[in-house]
């Protein structure tokens, strides 16, 4: 068991930072919220537009294919979500990857793969963002970018729950998971 006794509520426009040591269960909690992992007990309730079609899950893996080029992958996600292909180009520009459009996935650095993963969030607008260490492998510019994207998303009424290390987002609530570690054997 990773944790118990966890309870919180979040509203539109808010963001929640999950903090805690490695292995404390931040990723697991995000996966439970995303519906990927099933919890042993407890309930996750989204009211309003937060069902599966209203969420974005960005895990700590980037889902970048080695053989497709960056723009091809962004365009794939546009088609996947039923969005116009032009959204892919716009998203690539926004995350600062346009110059790497024609580079295959294996030629991208870790930070560039992360930015490519971020384009999903822009291509398809969805109210709830579940982000697992969104700034991992990103340089200062990249971290600023993520901060901007989160702020813009919240301004539009979106909600963000993110597992973070180090610097967080302005005006976020913080939940420290390490305090919720399962109690040891009696």
């Amino acid at each position, binding site marked *: 068991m990773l944790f118990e006794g966890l309870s919180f509520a979040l509203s539109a426009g808010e963001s929640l930072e999950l903090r805690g040591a490695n292995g404390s269960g931040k990723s697991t909690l995000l996966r439970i919220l*995303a519906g990927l992992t099933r919890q042993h007990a407890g309930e996750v309730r989204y009211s309003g537009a937060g069902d599966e*079609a209203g*969420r974005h899950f960005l895990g700590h893996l980037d889902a970048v*294919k080695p053989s497709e080029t960056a723009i091809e992958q962004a365009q794939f996600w546009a088609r*996947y979500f039923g969005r116009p292909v032009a959204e892919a180009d716009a998203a690539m520009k926004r995350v600062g990857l346009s110059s790497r459009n024609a580079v295959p996935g294996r030629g991208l650095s870790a930070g560039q793969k992360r930015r490519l993963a971020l384009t999903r969030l822009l291509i398809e607008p969805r109210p709830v963002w579940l982000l697992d260490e969104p700034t991992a492998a990103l340089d200062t510019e990249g971290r600023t970018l993520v901060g901007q994207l989160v702020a813009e998303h919240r301004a539009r009424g979106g909600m963000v729950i993110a597992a973070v290390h180090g610097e967080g987002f302005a005006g976020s609530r913080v939940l420290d998971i390490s305090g919720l570690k399962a109690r040891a054997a009696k």
Partner: protein
Amino acid sequence: MSASFSVFARELKLAWSGGGGAALPVGFFAASASMTPFAVGAETAALQTAGPGVMWIALALSSLLPMERLFQADLEDGTLDAYAGSGVGMEGIALAKTLAHWIATGIPLAVLSPVLWIMLQGAPEQSGLIFAASLVGSLAFFFFGSIGAALAAGMRRGGLLIALVTLPLYVPTMIFGAATLDAAANGADWAGALMLTASASLFGIATAPFGAAMALRTAID
């Protein structure tokens, strides 16, 4: 709908570009079918008796080969997580991927089978039938195989487990398909057997994605 179709198109492209995806199974098919005369003797009569059955077994095993890779890469690089987290049903994803892999690998296997048929002293006039039977049979093998592939996704060397789990599911297709080939070889009526093989395929296409989806959700969990 658009999600599954886009996954299908992507898989097709990836399967073809990913370093000659069909080469290995096709090569294996040719090599193992070519072992037949070493096993049963080179006389025409022996080959015509044993050839169809052995070829069908070789087709089944060649279809089993690509199964290990079916879901592995997507699981490992987080693509499966992305699909699951986006709210698109895993059934559609499983169907799209399996169908794409069949087109990329199964159809080439079916194209090769008349060639192997003739090499094993089968009547050349039957080539069309052999191609059709192999098309339908490989479709069944791929879809039933996808269940094993999903169950073993994420395992190192899941190939053995896939085989053990999938071979019982292959039995109907084995029986009906081999009977079709056998009837063709003996000049008997093959239509009934071919129909049954096609039914097995349809059953596979209809049910396997559900089993595979359940297994994929377990793998992601």
